[in-house]
C-alpha cells in the first residue's frame, strides 16, 4: 500500500522521535528539577531562556541552526575540529535541532509535575535515610509520573510532527533526513494526493493506536490531592 520510500520515511521518523525523546528525558529532567526547586534569584531568566525555542518559528529556528551548525558557524567549526563532521543534513543534525526545538515541551510538564510534589515526600524520604539523589529517583520521579507521560508524549509527537526545522536543516535526504512530514508534503506538492492521503492515514492510525495504548494504560489516576 505504501511505497518503500514511505516506509523508510516512517521508520526514520520513529527513530528520530524516539532518540529525541530519550535525549530530552535525560536532559530535561535535571533541568526541570533544578527549576522546580532552586531558589536562585535569576531562576526566572533561565526559565524564560528555556522556553524561548517555543516562540521561534520552526523555519526560523532551522535557518539559525543551519547557520550555527554550518561550515562558518561556531558550532559547525567546533564539530568539524572535533572530527564529527558537519551536522546539517545529517540524522544527528536533525536530532540536535529537534532537541532544541522540543526542549520546552519536555521541560514545562516536568517542571509543573516536580513543583506539585512539594517538600513533604522528600522530607520523609530523608528521614528514611534516602540521600537527595536517591529520593529523587525513588520518590520524585514516580510521583512526577503524569508529567513524564505528558512530556514524553508532547516531545515525541512534536518531533513526529516537526516540519519547518527539518525542511530547513534536513535537506530531504531519503533514509537520512526525509521524515514522514516532509514525505507527505512532497506528495502534496507533487499533487500526488492519493499518496499523501495514504501515508497520512497510516501515520494517523498508528499514532492514534499509540496514544490510545498510552492513555488506556494510564487508566484512572491515583486520587492524590493538593491538600
Amino acid at each position: 500500500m505504501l511505497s518503500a520510500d514511505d516506509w523508510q520515511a516512517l521508520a526514520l521518523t520513529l527513530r528520530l522521535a524516539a532518540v529525541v525523546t530519550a535525549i530530552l528525558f535525560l536532559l530535561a529532567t535535571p533541568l526541570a528539577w533544578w527549576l522546580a526547586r532552586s531558589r536562585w534569584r535569576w531562576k526566572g531568566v533561565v526559565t524564560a531562556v528555556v522556553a524561548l525555542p517555543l516562540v521561534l518559528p520552526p523555519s526560523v529556528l532551522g535557518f539559525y541552526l543551519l547557520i550555527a551548525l554550518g561550515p562558518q558557524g561556531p558550532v559547525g567549526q567546533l564539530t568539524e575540529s572535533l572530527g564529527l563532521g558537519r551536522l546539517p543534513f545529517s540524522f544527528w543534525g536533525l536530532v540536535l535541532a529537534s532537541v532544541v526545538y522540543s526542549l520546552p515541551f519536555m521541560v514545562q510538564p516536568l517542571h509543573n509535575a516536580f513543583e506539585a510534589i512539594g517538600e513533604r515526600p522528600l522530607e520523609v524520604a530523608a528521614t528514611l535515610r534516602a540521600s537527595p539523589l536517591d529520593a529523587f529517583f525513588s520518590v520524585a520521579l514516580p510521583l512526577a509520573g503524569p508529567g513524564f507521560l505528558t512530556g514524553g508524549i508532547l516531545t515525541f509527537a512534536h518531533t513526529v510532527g516537526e516540519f519547518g526545522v527539518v525542511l530547513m536543516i534536513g535537506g530531504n535526504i531519503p533514509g537520512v533526513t526525509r521524515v514522514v512530514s516532509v514525505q507527505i508534503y512532497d506528495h502534496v506538492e507533487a499533487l500526488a494526493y492519493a499518496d499523501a492521503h495514504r501515508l497520512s492515514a497510516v501515520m494517523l492510525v498508528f499514532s492514534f493506536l499509540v496514544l490510545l495504548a498510552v492513555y488506556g494504560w494510564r487508566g484512572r489516576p491515583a486520587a492524590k490531592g493538593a491538600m
Partner: protein
Amino acid sequence: MSVPAIEARLHLPWPGFTLDVDLRLPGRGVTALFGHSGSGKTTLLRCIAGLERAPGARVVFQGEVWQDGATWLPTHRRPLGYVFQEASLFPHLSVAGNLRYGLKRAGADDSALQQAIALLGIGHLLERRPDRLSGGERQRVGIARALALRPRVLLMDEPLAALDHARKKEILPYLERLRDELDIPILYVSHSPDEVARLADHLVVLADGRVQAEGPLAETLTRLDGPLRLGEDAGVVLAGTLAERDEAWHLVRIDFPGGHLWTRDPGLPLGKAVRVRVLARDVSLARQPPWSSSIQNVLPGVVDALAADEHPGVALVRVVVGDEDAGHATLLARVTRRSAASLGLEPGTPVWVQIKSVALLEG
C-alpha cells in the same frame, strides 16, 4: 544525664513566631515535649532532624555534631526515626512499599519491621494503597515505618493522637520496651498527660517558642508551683520493685522507698523494677486509719505543703510518706479546701493517705 546527651541550641525567627531554645536532653529514656498548639513542638523536632535549617544553631547527638557553624549533617545521614504529625505516606507505594522503603537504606534487617507490623496490627493492610486507609491506619503505618529502621533516636510528633485507647494501650508498652531495650532516646510530642506520665522520664514544656519548664519527670510533676498544670492528671510517679504476688486475687505488692502499694498483677516477674503513677485525684487523706473500705492502699504520712489548684475550691496537698529506715516518697493529693480545713491540714499534720488506684508503668 550521665549518658551522652542531645544538645540543641536553636534560634529560628519567623514572622509571628520565634523558636528560641537551648536544651540538653538525656541520652536515653523518653523526653516528652509538651505545649499548646502552636508553641513550637513540631518546629523543634524538625530542627533537630535537620528538616528545618536554623542558621547558627547547634545540634549535637551523643557527641556527634549534627549542626554547628559550617558543620551540617543532612537529614538522611542522621540516624533517626521520624513520625510526622500528619502520617505522610508515599502515595505511589503500597503500605508494604512504604514500610520497606527505609530498610535497605538504613541497613536494617526485617526483624524490627515484622515486630512493628504485628504490634501495630497492620499486617492485613500491606497490599493497600495509602489512600485506601483510615486515618488511624495511616498513622500506624507511619509509626511502623520509623520503627523499622532501628533508629538511634526517635522523634515522634503526636504519634498516637489518631488512635483509640485500646490501640494506644497496645503500642505504649512497646514504646516502653523500645526505650528500655534498645536504650535509645525518644523525643515525644504529645497532648496527652496520660501518655506523658506513662512514658516520659524527662519533660520539656514549650510556650511560644521558649522552654517554660524542663526537668526529670518526677521532679517536674511534684512541683506545686510549676507552670505545668496537668489539671486532672496531676500526680507523681514512684520507682519501685515488684515484691510479692497474691496469686488468688491477681494482685502484686510493689515496694518503694517509703512504703508499699497493692495493685493488679501485670504478669511481670518478681524483683522487676517498675514505675507506678499515682494521680492526685486518686489520693484522699484521713486523720484516722480507715477500715472496712474497698480502698486497699493506706499509708501513714505527714503533710509537707499545700497549694492552690486550678479551681479555688480545691487544694493540692503534698504529703511525705515513709520513715528514716524505709526511705521517703512524695505523693500529691487533691482535696477540696473545705475538707482541708475541716481536717485541719497544714504542714506537719500527720495523715493517712488512702490511694484508690494506681497505674503500673513498666520499667
